């Protein structure tokens, strides 16, 4: 009996020593992160948006196993440890995923317990337009961040998850179209261009090159603080081009331009282009043009639209970009178009 007790005690000691050593092995160093609460607060005060609480470099493949793992535990599945050994080793070393596991375990165990009274549905807004725009912006940021996490994982696994990431970015763009305040909308899509360049085969925008002119939509309705409250200029007024046609204004540093709608045709109007471009045909690249496709692009490829005529002697270029059923005069459709034209590059065609 004493031998048995002694042996069991010795085995426990051995396990405890191995466990102590394992903690050193599996520990994933905490990332240097700034206090998310303070970031949220300051951002919230200035931009009326809620920043993300989780960054995109979280452990996606393990995180997404958690619901099934928790359910297997709750159902006392005898195979759970066999099936989820890699996840267990991960949870032992990752505080963030372990915390998410605890959160999910508690919520799911409560959910599957039989209860007499269930929570009632909320009463409140029922449309995206009536939902607080800061929360729409937060959803857009979450979706874009998730797309980034998926693309990073694809790169790590040398796999192709483009379709999954693309659908999240498309959803983010569609939801952002319901945000009427341009600064909040801009905040919602602030990472869109960067993440879109992570797609396989895409190259980062060449903004540093002096031969490339990178246009972005001009900011309208800039909010400003007055005694702690944000006031905004009305943004319902549709901008109009020179011929009193509906237009989206563009800017590239001191240069200005616009996308003018003539019927179904979207036409690019640029002014004051450099001497080096005058008399030359240019190549226009719309980075997000292939992400969603409400526009039938001139030439078929939004990353390489060839101008139909050269830049004139005064530095003016007017050339068609494509055809669309969307209308700039419709607020949500204009917002959608603005998202598509978040980055438009112009360079000389050699």
């Amino acid at each position, binding site marked *: 009996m004493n031998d048995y007790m002694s042996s069991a005690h010795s085995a*426990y000691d*051995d*396990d405890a*020593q191995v*466990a*102590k*050593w*394992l903690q*050193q*092995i*599996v520990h994933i160093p905490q990332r240097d992160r700034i206090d998310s*609460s303070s970031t949220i607060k300051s951002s919230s005060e200035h931009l009326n948006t*809620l920043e993300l*609480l*989780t960054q995109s470099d*979280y452990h*996606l493949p*393990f*995180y*997404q196993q958690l*619901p099934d793992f*928790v*359910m297997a535990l709750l159902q006392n599945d005898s195979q759970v*440890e*066999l099936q989820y*050994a*890699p996840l*267990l*080793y991960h949870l*032992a070393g990752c505080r963030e995923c372990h915390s998410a*596991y605890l*959160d999910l*375990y*508690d*919520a*799911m*165990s*409560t*959910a599957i317990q039989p209860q007499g009274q*269930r*929570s009632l*549905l*909320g009463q*409140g*807004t*029922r*449309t*995206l337009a009536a939902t*607080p725009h*800061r*929360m729409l912006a*937060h*959803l857009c940021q*979450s*979706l874009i*961040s998730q797309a980034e*996490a998926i693309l990073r994982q694809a790169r790590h696994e040398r796999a192709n998850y483009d*379709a999954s990431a693309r659908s999240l970015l498309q*959803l983010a763009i569609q*939801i952002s179209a319901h945000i009427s305040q341009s600064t909040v909308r801009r905040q919602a899509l602030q990472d869109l261009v960067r993440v879109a360049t992570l797609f396989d085969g895409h190259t980062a925008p060449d903004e540093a090159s002096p031969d490339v002119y990178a246009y972005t939509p001009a900011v309208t309705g800039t909010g400003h603080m007055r005694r702690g409250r944000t006031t905004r200029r009305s943004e319902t007024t549709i901008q109009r081009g020179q011929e009193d046609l509906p237009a989206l204004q563009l800017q590239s540093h001191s240069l200005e331009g616009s996308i003018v709608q003539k019927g179904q045709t979207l036409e690019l109007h640029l002014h004051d282009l450099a001497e080096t471009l005058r008399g030359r045909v240019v190549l226009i690249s719309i980075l997000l043009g292939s992400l969603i496709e409400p526009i039938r692009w001139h030439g078929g490829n939004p990353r390489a639209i060839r101008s139909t005529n050269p830049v004139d002697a005064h530095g003016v270029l007017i050339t068609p970009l494509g055809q669309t059923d969307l209308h700039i005069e419709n607020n949500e459709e204009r917002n959608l178009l603005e998202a598509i034209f978040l980055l438009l590059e112009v360079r000389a065609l050699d």
Partner: protein
Amino acid sequence: MPFTAHDLRYQTEHSYPLLYAYLHRNAQRYLGALKYDAFEVDTVIGHVVEQLVRLGLLGGGSQTPLTALDRLTDAQFYTFLSRSVRNKAIDRLRKRHLQVNAVAELETNDDENADNDPLHSTVESLWGTTPFATPEELTLHLASQNHLRAVLRHCILALSAAPNQLQAILQELQEMGADTLLQSIQTELQLPLSHEPVMHLSQHKDHAHKKLRYCLQQQSSNLTVIVALRLTIYTKTATGSNNYTVDIQTLAQHDLTEDMVRKGLDELVIAGLLDWHGETIVHLTAVQLKRLGRFYKEE
């Protein structure tokens, strides 16, 4: 009009306002004194929304696999959301209490609504009897369960391609007093512990730790151990010989595909534990079977 997990996955634009309304109501309910603090309400809602996106549910469409959350009934799903909101609200309340602690200590606690304060209802144990409630509890479990420990042995064995790193790990095990594990590794590798000083020991140790961490979290490592254990269980004596055989279908059982079994077998061949060239019947000698059993089944 109710929404479902299915709606959040496939009709996100339509169902998000309904989700927001539901989360908002619950956030106000659980935030107690902070219920009119728009920042706190947003933070709680934002946490749950982010969690649903990360899990591949909100906006996941058909691109991300269904999980147990998709299989909850509608009532269960609402309870899940409500509980998630509650947990985050408690987290925020605790954080705010910590921030005002210095002032609060100078004041008497005359909270008449203490019974309604969600913080009080969770003082005893927020997580109840949650398994693996701490990383420490989890590592002890990993070290004490045979299958999980076999994965660890497998990954240490894989270090034999880098002798200095392996020696660094063996020295660590000796220093920690993990004698049983150390002996099983040494017996398998027939490798005595070197007492010669290893140059750049800490560097080798760091590299070994990284490799081990990576290996332990790989599904392929787990698969190899599962296949090895099944070889020790399901092989039968071949007629008229001292060898043992088992077919791949038997090794697959109901939870693995044949491809997965083949991958596991490939890994065992690479580790030098098996001779197999892709046949549907796996042959083992008595020595190989004994070795597999000794290393993967028990120490």
